[in-house]
């Protein structure tokens, strides 16, 4: 992990910024963030696997208005870093576990950044209310800077947690299997709940059932 630390940090900053502050091209989706982190670490399949599980969790998130939500993108970067370095095929569970924790921290950090942004707005209220373009640009760029710092700090803490987990957490084969079961089960639950929100209306529910049937056919004959 250490030899790719710089690239992972850079990827973490891009992913962190993409979530809300800049572009929103969805590289912050865990599927993309985890898979690319896997590519950086030389194992895209492990990155995609934890990315898919965390993507199921992310299906539940509707980022509307001022809602608070976990940062699954940064979670996926650190999950991939953990899973790639975990022995055998049992890295998924431990990776997702780290990813969920980092996503939680990332979400809390977003709230802190927004509170700081509000303080910045209050401090420059007079200039903003008199139409100063310098003040508008200043608040915008300082806020962007805060999010860069958030992404850097959360990625750094996340990679530290990943390294500490791999080094010191006593994870036997049995524990890995249990973690894998918990991660996949909880991920599927979050995904189904997310769809539940989307398919609130009866007509959408019938489309969901149709899709489900198609997916099952695909699994059997695919």
């Amino acid at each position, binding site marked *: 992990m250490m030899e790719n630390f710089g690239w992972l940090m850079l990827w973490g900053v891009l992913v962190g910024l993409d979530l809300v502050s800049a572009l929103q*091209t969805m590289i912050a989706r865990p599927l993309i963030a985890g898979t690319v982190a896997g590519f950086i670490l030389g194992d895209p399949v492990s990155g995609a696997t934890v990315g898919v599980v965390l993507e199921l969790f992310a299906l539940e998130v509707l980022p509307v208005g001022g809602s608070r939500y976990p940062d699954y993108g940064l979670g996926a970067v650190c999950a991939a870093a953990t899973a790639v370095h975990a022995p055998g095929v049992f890295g998924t569970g431990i990776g997702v576990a780290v990813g969920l924790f980092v996503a939680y921290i990332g979400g809390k950090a977003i709230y802190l950044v927004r509170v700081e942004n509000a303080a910045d707005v209050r401090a420059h209220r007079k200039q903003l209310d008199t139409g100063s373009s310098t003040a508008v640009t200043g608040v915008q760029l300082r806020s962007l800077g805060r999010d860069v710092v958030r992404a850097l700090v959360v990625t750094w803490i996340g990679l530290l947690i990943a390294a500490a987990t791999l080094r010191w957490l006593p994870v036997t084969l049995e524990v890995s299997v249990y973690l894998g079961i918990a991660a996949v089960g909880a991920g599927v639950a979050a995904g189904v709940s997310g769809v539940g929100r989307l398919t609130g209306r009866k007509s959408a529910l019938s*489309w969901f059932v149709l899709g489900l049937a198609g997916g099952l056919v695909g699994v059997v004959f695919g």
Partner: protein
Amino acid sequence: MKQGMVRSWLRSLLLQASWNYERMIGIGLAFTTEPLLRDLPGGVEGERYRAALARATQQFNGHPYLIGLAAGALARVEHEALPEEQVKRLRTALAGPLGSVGDKMVWAGLLPVASALGMVLAVWVSPTAAVLGFLVLYNAVHFVLRGWALYSGWNGGLRVGQRLGARLIKLGLRLAGPLAALTVGFALPVVGAWLVRHLDAQELVGAGLIAGVGVVFARWVWPTLGGNRFGLAAVAVALLLGWL
């Protein structure tokens, strides 16, 4: 004005950087609108420019991809020198629809569709196909939507509401939910079967049990718990069970 439109479109990509609990995306809206206000009579030192920019910084919220409609329309009415009260009314009238239309079309439509496609590609094709498939499909719509919004806002001005009722938007709103439900419904068994391919029967029952408990919690027992905290709790229980 063409240069101003390009600048405004580029700035809209940073719109939400200053999201805050004081004015939400008000500052971001002003940051996006500013290039369109520069050629108001009197220029950037003029009274009209400063007054228009000050109005633009007030509290506002809406979907980030459709914010161009507000930026373009508000800049246009400032150029047309409409009374301040009318500008404020337009601003208030736009916030709600921009949020609901964008949320329904993008967050609850396009995004889950791209996500489902990406997951299926990851399972059936390759990680590279997943990344490319997701990003190309999503961003083809995303960037066109941003550009259309700004162009329509500027051209619509005070009548921007009619643009929100365009046939394509109506079609998008009608298709978003069913398409998302269909594709995510398809992806769930495909992804689920792939993730549990290494588990034996007993372990499968365990995963199914956790999934069932999770759905019951999310739907009926504790809807505000959220998948993240439920996942963390499940992981903690798994660790304890493993260590004991």
